[in-house]
């Protein structure tokens, strides 16, 4: 049976981006160097675990049914920017260049990684599109094979009649990194230069 210290270190090591050495450093920091931080951290984790969930409309992080963006009446919810992950949404928000709504897929299609349509937050998007309130979809998925395939898949799911305008950004964004690593100026010009997608 591993000691309490070892158990903590093993839990930390499984977090993304942390290897054995950084997990050890964090564990020592919390237990030995700055033990006073520990109660606040434990409380924040418990509080977040209890209250944070996915927004039922867009998939963003939310503390109620709707996230702050979906609940904001000043935002134009008829324009929906589709992103892969929550940090992509955060990058658009930091840029201040965008005042519409979002939809977070929580991934992109990749059969090789076992990700199919059922694993993405697609049902909620289909529901939004079906009720006729969405006028424009801006696809802000990564500029790679899986991002491109996911864009194409989404356009096949649109309600018939061509009532929804679809555009794609990603041209000019850093390849591979996509939205997340683009600065505000780049994101703003990428939004302005978005192209109709077919």
């Amino acid at each position, binding site marked *: 049976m591993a000691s309490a210290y070892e158990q903590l270190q093993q839990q930390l090591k499984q977090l993304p981006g942390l290897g054995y050495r950084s997990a050890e450093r964090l564990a020592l920091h919390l237990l030995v160097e700055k033990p006073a931080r520990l109660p606040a951290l434990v409380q924040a984790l418990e509080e977040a675990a209890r209250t944070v969930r996915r927004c039922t409309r867009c998939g963003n992080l939310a503390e109620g049914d709707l996230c702050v963006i979906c609940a904001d009446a000043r935002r134009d919810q008829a324009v929906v920017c589709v992103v892969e992950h929550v940090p992509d949404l955060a990058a658009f928000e930091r840029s201040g260049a965008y005042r519409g709504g979002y939809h977070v897929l929580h991934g992109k*299609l990749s*059969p090789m990684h076992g990700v199919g349509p059922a694993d993405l937050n697609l049902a909620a998007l289909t529901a939004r599109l079906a009720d006729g309130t969405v006028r424009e979809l801006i696809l802000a998925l990564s500029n*790679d*094979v899986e991002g491109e*395939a*996911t864009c194409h*898949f989404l356009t096949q799911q649109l309600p018939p009649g061509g009532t929804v305008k679809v555009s794609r950004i990603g041209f000019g964004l850093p390849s591979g990194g996509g939205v997340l690593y683009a600065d505000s100026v780049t994101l703003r010009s990428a939004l302005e230069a978005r192209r109709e997608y077919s």
Partner: protein
Amino acid sequence: MRLRRITLQHFRNIAGAELAFASRRQFFAGANGQGKTSLLEAAGFITALRSFRTADPAVLIAHGQPEAALACELDHERLGPTRVVIRLRPGSREVSCDGERVPRIADYLGRFPTVVFTAQDLQLIRGAPALRRRWLDLTLAAIDAGYLAALQSYHRALDERNRLLKLGGPPAELAAFEHPLAAAAAVLGVKRGAALAELTHCLAAAYGRIAAAVEPAAVGLAPVAPAADADGWRRIYADGRTRDLRFRTTLAGPHRDDLEFTLGGRSARDFGSEGEQRSLMLALRLAQADFFQARSGVEPVLLADDVLGELDAGRRERFWAAVGSARQVLATGTRPPDTGPDDWERFRVAGGAFAMEASGA
């Protein structure tokens, strides 16, 4: 470009070597397994950070060593005197040019062209289609970052589609991945077509000089590509879905392309004599060098691994005439050259060590 000095450390069986070259002709003699081919392999590595002998860079690191390093000092048409340093560790490679780290391989491709002649080149005519595709892909990817990107996208999309086919994938998902697959297929098709037209032009000229023959040599896709653009490829993939689902893999596309070499319009594999086939492969490598030079504006260094000994005297003479005096040649063999240029710098290779021999000996 000209290779002035090459330094190797823990590269295969070469613990450490530093060789300076004064002329444009170097010959490395020694028994097999002593390190002469490894030296050519190292020199060729600077072109596209690839070995012509193995797809696994880990085997280039001497047993028990944490890393291998090679450094080349070059006189370069565009960059002037340049020092390229490459460090290989298991799973990583690091390149610097004049002390500055090269972060993206796309920025590096095409700067330092080399062309390798090997004894296995005849297999390009006689062997399986995969060998010819690999040659074409490596030739283009070595100097065209756009080709390399399209090739990587294509294989990525192909792997995803093949995975779906094995899962009995629904049509909507197959169609989704056929989209980027077709886009990459179209880019490959256009770039392969343009390159083969240039290569045929160079090949016909080089073959004429080496074989002293009148029948023109050519290389082209056989059969020709069934689609000319992304829409065409999309239709082909969509139409092939039922068949591909049955075979659980993608049966049509640029990954199935083959090349045909012809002499006077007839298949060199079926109708060419052994001598004609040998001349054709030498001509192909010279054509590759001309192609690199035309595209990059840089004179490639030729690396001839144990091929000159197999030529008869007449062919050897015409080969040297076709190479010309401007291009640098590093050649290996078991015996020193008896004919050809007399300004060879000669090195004897044994146990991973190199010793320069007196010139004219």
